[in-house]
């Protein structure tokens, strides 16, 4: 990796200032994505601002919402009894991210800031209509994701926590990429106060998206059968050496039905 300055501020304001003062500075959370990028010399930040000292870990219940702070690791989410009782689907999702090492280090904030098109969390955030709370504002999920690796975040804006409205029931079904174990297709299905929600990650050629046709079908009848004839346009799909667009489109249907059946 290239040389850089290393900062470990103790307050969010200081972290934001450090990022604002230097356009080439970057935040570091669990480092599961960022450090490999540095090691491969794919990024050349002048400074790295470590978020580990900001006290940004923890999970709490706030009325009808589950709030997870940005630096909470995937393992903490997977093991949390708070999460298990409020949104068990989220615990399952976190518990199946990557491998053990990744789950011990990787964070929800890092995952959402990165918005990898095959990351798992974006589908939960979008399907549940979560709110991304940052160092300066609250961003609705619908406004937050802006295509592959692109979000509404400003360069000096930090995610501090994520607030998930608790659904009636939900589930996440993931078809892992056989090599990376990221989602090749991941579908998060939820029955919420606003109706059925289906968000698809891993499959789309523009990142995470909501599946309107499936939502409509599930609003009619929240059963796997209701999705039997709902197709997914291949033109929306991403294709790579592991799965072409037709196969991905097919898997979206399979994973959605499995998620509906697993909803609790």
């Amino acid at each position, binding site marked *: *990796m*290239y040389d850089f300055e290393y900062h470990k501020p103790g307050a969010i304001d200081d972290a934001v200032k450090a990022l604002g003062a230097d356009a080439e500075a970057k935040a570091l959370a669990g480092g599961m994505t960022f450090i490999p990028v540095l090691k491969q010399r794919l990024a050349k930040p002048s400074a790295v601002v470590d978020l580990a000292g900001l006290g940004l870990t923890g999970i709490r219940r706030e009325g009808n919402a589950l709030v997870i702070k940005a630096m909470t690791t995937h393992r903490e989410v997977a093991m949390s009894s708070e999460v298990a009782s409020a949104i068990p689907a989220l615990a399952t999702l976190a518990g199946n991210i990557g491998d053990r090492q990744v789950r011990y280090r990787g964070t929800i904030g890092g995952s959402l800031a990165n918005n990898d098109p095959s990351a798992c969390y974006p589908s939960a955030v979008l399907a549940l209509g979560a709110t991304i709370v940052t160092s300066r504002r609250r961003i609705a999920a619908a406004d937050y994701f802006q295509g592959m690796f692109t979000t509404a975040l400003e360069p000096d804006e930090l995610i501090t926590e994520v607030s998930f409205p608790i659904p009636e029931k939900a589930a996440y079904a993931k078809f892992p990429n056989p090599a990376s174990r990221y989602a090749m297709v991941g579908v998060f299905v939820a029955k919420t106060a606003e109706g059925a929600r289906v968000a698809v990650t891993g499959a789309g050629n523009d990142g995470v998206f909501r599946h309107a046709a499936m939502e409509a079908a599930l609003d009619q009848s929240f059963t796997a059968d209701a999705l039997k004839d709902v197709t997914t346009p291949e033109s929306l799909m991403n294709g790579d*050496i592991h799965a072409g667009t037709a*196969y991905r489109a*097919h898997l979206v249907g399979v994973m959605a039905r499995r998620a509906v059946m697993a909803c609790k």
Partner: protein
Amino acid sequence: MNDLSNPVIIKGGIGDSPKRTEDHRFLSGKGRYTDDINRPGQAYAYFKRSDVAHGVIKSIDTAAAAAMPGVVAIYTGEDIAKAGIGGVPCGWQLHSKDGSPMVEPPHPILAQGKVRYVGDAIAMVIAETTEQAKDAAEALVIDIESLPAVSEMRAATAPGAALVHDAAAGNICFDWHIGDKAAVDAAFATAFKVARIDVVNNRLIPNPMEPRAAIGDFDQSSGEHTLYTTSQNPHVIRLLMGAFVLQIPEHKLRVVAPDVGGGFGAKIFHYIEEAAVTWAAAQINRPVKWTCGRGEAFITDAHGRDHITHAELALAEDGKFLGLRVNTMANMGAYLSTFAPSVPTYLSATLLAGVYTTPAIYGEVKAVFTNTVPVDAYRGAGRPETTFLLERLVDVAAKEMGMDRVAIRRRNFIPIDAYPYQTPVALMYDSGNHEATLARCMEIADWNGFEARRAAAAKRGKLRGIGMSTYLEACGIAPSAVAGALGARAGLYEVANVRVHPTGSVTVFTGTHSHGQGHETTFAQLVADQLGVPFESVEVVHGDTAKIPFGMGTYGSRSLAVGGSAMVKAMDKIIAKGKKIAAHLMEAAVDDIEFKDGKFTVAGTDKSKSFAEIAITAYVPHNYPIEEVEPGLDETAFYDPKNFTFPGGCHICEVEIDPDTGVVQLIGFTAVDDIGRVINPMIVHGQVHGGVTQGIGQALLEHAIYDETGQLLSGSLMDYTMPRADNVVNIHVGTESTLCTHNPLGAKGVGEVGAIGSPPAVINAVVDALRDYGVSHIDMPATPQKIWSIINAGAPRMAAE
């Protein structure tokens, strides 16, 4: 010496399973790998590599890079040419059908004139730190004019294709054949039916856990060069690099291969980086270290397999195989790696008889240059390719004939009383019992109960299949005269030096090398058993040309069959000498001395001397037959095998397919192998587990994919699917041994059988699971996408169809 046929297992001896001695240090982080070695004053090398698959090097401007902080030296292909340094050599020469030698283009240690694959080294930057070397490499100004590239063999052999080497017309390295074409044509003329198959043996990337590394060191006072390297065969590297590349005589070149974290073939070959750091260390008079990155390993470690084959099998009405015709294209990559030409030919086509009595066989192999990483031996080297082809073809033939898959195999097995069996493709098999391994494997896997399990799976909406492979391979390479006649440029004997110390402990110096196989344990057992000394008092040393007289290293499952045999020979000499000393001490005739269980005894008496007593006498020769016998107890033996060894067996795999996703789940895997004498059953099981896992990886997961411009698309572990624990099942391992008839141990070899026998068993099971979909073949890897496409393309045919 203990009788090898003695069924009594001595603690720590042959047949016992002591835990692996070496694992103490491996599991506690105390292994000493090449990258753990640091020499005083060491500088660091980084190789600037081509990111285009094919191009002309117009210019390289090193000025800015040379001025960067910490830079010690920068070398390009031009410097190498000026220094008169040769290319890395190929260790095997083949001749085409017309008698002409293979096209053998030079493989310079830094590219000269042209780059030929993504990863081809253009310049070596040496600096005080690796990061500084990388920084400077970014400042190199390199002008490369891209040329059209060929990455796939059909494209490379199409008319008008870009030429990787001007000397190789049509990108053909050689066009070789074996067998009797006329006899095969005659057999086909009488065939009742012909079974045909086209198979691709998928290209693989070995990925040993430890990436390669090399340190060059030079002692100005003695003029001695030392290379520390991640090699499976340090003496071979010393020979190839010393004699052919750098012209350093053996007495001035030491090659050390310390702990090596897996090789699987990829660490057999002499790589350019080894020569580059050795040479550069002498240029700058400082040690130079290079450590390969994981991403770099993907584009520089020799890849494996990559064959395309069309085969036809002529069958008689009773299912007997009459003739086999095979046509293969084998990818060599951009340059000939050390053993590349031998893999598709003498290590592959010579096994086309398999375990069957096919009387007429003809095989043709075209080796093709492409703009890809060089391809060479990878666990199994040639035998997995042939085994996959044959065992798939036999299943296709069974279907064609309407015969049972087991029955057609049994009808064609080489019967046990036909051994030794001369095949029509050069090899003479010494031993084997195919019925025994088949029957045992079928029993453990409950082959006959399968249809009930399939029906039960169908009720759960799953497609269940079972497949087998009955295979045989040739390893224990190799009789030097035979190998030489077939084109090997080296002998393939092995060397052991058994040093008995004054107090009776023993150090064995072996020319083989252990990089995961557990030799420190297995060989110690062998020595303990034969000399009757405790297992704990035997030390095994390998991997240093300064310590070990000579050796050819470890590959081709040769270490026990060839290296172990050399040890037996050396121990025979120790025992013979010990008898003379014992005879003197006990005032008996030498012929009356018997050696057993660590004791020299005067036959028919209770007079005896322990091994330790003889050892101390040999080193403190006060009362000693000094006129006839030299002091000391230290013997060296070279063992040249009389033939290849022929392990074989039966593998059975059972799978379930989820028709919604195309995912193949392994349900069971059983391997019953005939590997000859087993020294340590636990290690044998481990070798089979590892090999089968690699075979499952090849069958279901792994695939090195290039795009048409020669970029490697599966260039990291994020895209290249290595098998993991959850991709495999518990593997049932059994052995059903016949002994090798021509080496003193009766050992055949176990290092590769798992990877050789398993892929067709897996694919035969997958094809069987899809039997209602009218498929007769699926290329590896059988990914979910491929299987889903088959399922999606056609609803199941009715059974009546």
